[in-house]
């Protein structure tokens, strides 16, 4: 019965996408230190994203935003039992190599950090660790999947506490998927050209009616109602960045967003957990932003 002689294989597409499958229905929380990571795990987070500054602070402080200090990532790994993700700059494959060497569980090649390459994203197939990437539309999502991304998150506009961009991106992706589903085989060639996406992936989406990898939502989620909204719009899990630790009562907000993500179809539960939460993060009107992070990545 023993399989001592049989080969086992690491880094397959199935184990990389599989971890994303395991995170479905959950909340991934941005944390900047082990104390916040512990609060996130206590609140029921399925994973944490270790970073130096939450997007709202990156926006406020300016400067170049880079990969986090390995010491901080290690401290968080030692504190929690759930998966620990970390961000690399777009195109910065050396940062990604370091994060893989640190044994992080997922790398976010993220527009929240300052891009390192204005043309190329990281060749994600060459890594054992899986990658998540942001997308604002279906073409962008399929290009990232073509490069090896194993999870897509709609970008939204990070650090704003404003859900409007996340809704725009989710609706856009959903509409473009429905367009592919209504196309006949000969139309798919032209649609693939318009989407600037690999034809086999376009055909797969047309067949399945969804992305080939899990689609999560990020960028602007700051209340339980926001989480319920994006889950009802087809997100399979949510990333919450500034929305928790920039709120008045982070522990309570974290728990409430976890409950709302699981029970998003039950408005009575979402109403209950939304009650007496204290102030959500202040947030920003997107029309007034100097820098739109979602425009980074191509």
């Amino acid at each position, binding site marked *: 019965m*023993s399989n001592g002689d049989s080969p086992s294989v690491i880094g397959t597409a*199935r*184990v990389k996408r599989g971890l994303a*499958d395991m995170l479905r*229905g959950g909340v991934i929380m941005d944390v900047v230190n082990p104390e916040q990571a512990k609060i996130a795990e206590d609140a029921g987070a399925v994973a944490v994203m270790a970073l130096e500054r939450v997007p709202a602070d990156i926006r406020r402080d300016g400067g170049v935003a880079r990969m986090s200090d390995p010491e901080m990532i290690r401290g968080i790994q030692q504190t929690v039992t759930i998966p620990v993700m970390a961000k690399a700059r777009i195109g910065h494959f050396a940062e990604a190599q370091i994060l893989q060497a640190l044994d992080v569980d997922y790398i976010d090649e993220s527009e929240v950090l300052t891009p390192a390459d204005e043309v190329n994203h990281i060749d994600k197939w060459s890594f054992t660790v899986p990658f998540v990437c942001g997308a604002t539309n279906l073409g962008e999502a399929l290009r990232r999947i073509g490069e090896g991304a194993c999870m897509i998150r709609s970008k939204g506009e990070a650090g704003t506490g404003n859900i409007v961009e996340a809704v725009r991106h989710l609706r856009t992706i959903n509409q473009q998927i429905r367009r592919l589903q209504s196309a006949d085989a000969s139309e798919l060639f032209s649609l693939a050209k318009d989407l600037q996406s690999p034809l086999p992936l376009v055909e797969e989406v047309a067949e399945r009616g969804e992305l080939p990898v899990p689609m999560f939502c990020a960028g602007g989620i700051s209340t339980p109602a926001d989480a319920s909204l994006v889950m009802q719009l087809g997100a399979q899990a949510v990333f919450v960045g500034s929305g928790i630790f920039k709120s008045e009562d982070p522990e309570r907000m974290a728990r409430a967003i976890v409950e709302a993500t699981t029970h998003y179809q039950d408005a009575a539960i979402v109403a209950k957990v939304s009650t007496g939460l204290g102030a959500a993060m202040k947030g920003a009107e997107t029309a007034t932003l100097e820098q739109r992070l979602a425009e980074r990545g191509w």
Partner: protein
Amino acid sequence: MPRVGVLALQGDVREHVAVLSRLGVTTSTVRTASQLDDVEALVLPGGESTAIAHLLGTSGLRAALESRLSDHMPVFGTCAGLILLSSQVLDGREDQWSFGALDVSVRRNGYGRQVASFEAPIEVRGLGVVPGVFIRAPRIDAVGTEVEVLAEHDHGDGPHPVLVRQGSVWGCSFHPELTSSSDIHRMFVDSLPV
């Protein structure tokens, strides 16, 4: 044919629903205690065991499921589901609890973090070889005398059980639901009282 629920608080719920549907089993998702009343058996999916444990507490399902387990409701847990059913959890959170329905000691992430996640063929007693997908998988380090070991895997440090059964309680450290094989789910379904 009994109705089989899939615990749907978090994790790879839809994959289990899909396999059970392929087998012609009537299924429903379970997020509340009242939904648990509607099913005769339950699958606990893969996911994050700490998050699912937290949500079991807040939803009232922890007490309801404890009561059903003491009434010998058939259950099948994969990965996080195995952890939740086990009698002892090693390398977990300090306050990590489990139902203790399956007399096994499991080590969380016993095969390593995500970069060590792997696939390997698994030979199941009386069934043959099935694909094994192990994702930050728990490792079964010890089993009680009442536990039947249906498959083992040697990951270079000696064989460890990967599929076990104790009466109506089944546990699996890998993810049959992520493959096109329905065989292990069929074993569970075939074991259910008609």
